[in-house]
């Protein structure tokens, strides 16, 4: 049976590669150091395949067809899509994936009530490619990308996200494979893009969320309401990827790697590791 060998979560904002000068240098250095710790953990764990879970920023999906959850099913994907229209600071590149693993999760989910939408071609955006640029710049680790709608309400509830994480853990454990699997969650914490709150970081919310996340208080994470989350920022909903991760690793110790509310980046930046 397959084994869930490593989990990690990180904010995914692009400032860390293309607008570093906007952040306080000391905080940016802490964010960089966190990324190096996560990258080392990924190399040391050497998973055979990883799931990378992120929001998407109206580059692939739109309100004419907006799934709650979707999985990329292919041998490789590419990105970031933003490089099509501007210099983005992250090279456009190809990332290996795992068709068989993705297909297994989709088929099992469709049989067990997790109705994944399926993506067979995907130029992913910064939500995936910025963390991958920092964690695996040579694309040595196969990645299966998972999308969560965090951009266009109605959004999947935190309770549903936590349940999907629990389901993922069970599905991975029951996969008839000797592969070792990691899960990387990206996004958050509190921030706004394009709303009247832009620039606001809700440090109190971020610290409460991280306390619950690191203490494994899944009930508290699942009980968060969309109203409570969206009050802290129009894009804070990206913490749904963290909640999926929390569900997948319920009961496992979590290490808080860093938290810095970086004003110039307009984002509460955080990273955690689960071994």
């Amino acid at each position, binding site marked *: 049976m397959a084994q869930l060998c490593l989990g990690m979560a990180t904010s995914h904002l692009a400032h860390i590669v293309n607008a570093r000068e906007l952040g306080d240098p000391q905080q940016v250095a802490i964010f960089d150091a966190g990324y190096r710790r996560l990258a080392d953990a990924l190399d040391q764990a050497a998973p055979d395949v990883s799931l990378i879970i992120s929001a998407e*920023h*109206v*580059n692939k999906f*739109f*309100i*004419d067809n907006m799934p709650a959850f979707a999985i990329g099913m292919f041998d490789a994907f590419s990105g970031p899509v933003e490089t*099509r*229209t501007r210099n983005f600071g992250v090279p456009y590149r190809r990332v290996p994936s795992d068709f068989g693993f993705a297909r297994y999760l989709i088929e099992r989910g469709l049989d067990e009530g997790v109705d994944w939408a399926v993506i067979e071609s995907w130029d992913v955006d910064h939500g995936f490619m910025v963390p991958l640029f920092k964690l695996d710049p040579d694309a040595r680790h196969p990645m299966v990308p998972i999308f969560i709608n965090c*951009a*266009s309400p109605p959004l999947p509830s935190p309770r549903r996200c936590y349940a999907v994480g629990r389901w993922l853990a069970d599905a991975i454990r029951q996969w008839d494979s000797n592969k070792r699997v990691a899960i990387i969650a990206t996004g958050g914490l509190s921030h*706004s*893009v*394009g*709303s*009247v709150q*832009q*620039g606001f970081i809700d440090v109190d919310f971020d610290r409460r969320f991280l306390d619950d996340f690191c203490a494994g208080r899944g009930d508290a994470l699942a009980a968060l309401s969309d109203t409570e989350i969206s009050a802290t920022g*129009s*894009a804070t909903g990206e913490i749904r990827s963290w909640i999926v991760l929390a569900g997948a690793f319920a009961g496992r110790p979590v290490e808080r790697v860093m938290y810095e509310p970086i004003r110039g980046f307009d984002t509460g930046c955080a990273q955690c590791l689960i071994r």
Partner: protein
Amino acid sequence: MSARSPDQPPGSPRYWVNRALVDLCRAPNARDHIANKSDFFANYSLSAEERQALLAPQWRHLLELGVLPNLVYRYYMLHGLKPESFPTAIKGAA
């Protein structure tokens, strides 16, 4: 939401204004279209209120019309405006 006539194509109240903006934002030559916004938006089924908010542009009113915040910000940036000026612009009169 702005008034719509019954002969307009189907879609949710916020659909067409978002459709118009996402098409512009995803266009490889999006910056060129900014210079001719009225031409670009001419073929979209928009209310007068939506069209005016897009052309002015009225940043905050676009949010009130149901445009996704991410698209409002991308539209703002396509105008060559500085990101640090956005919080002031979005808090301006609707």
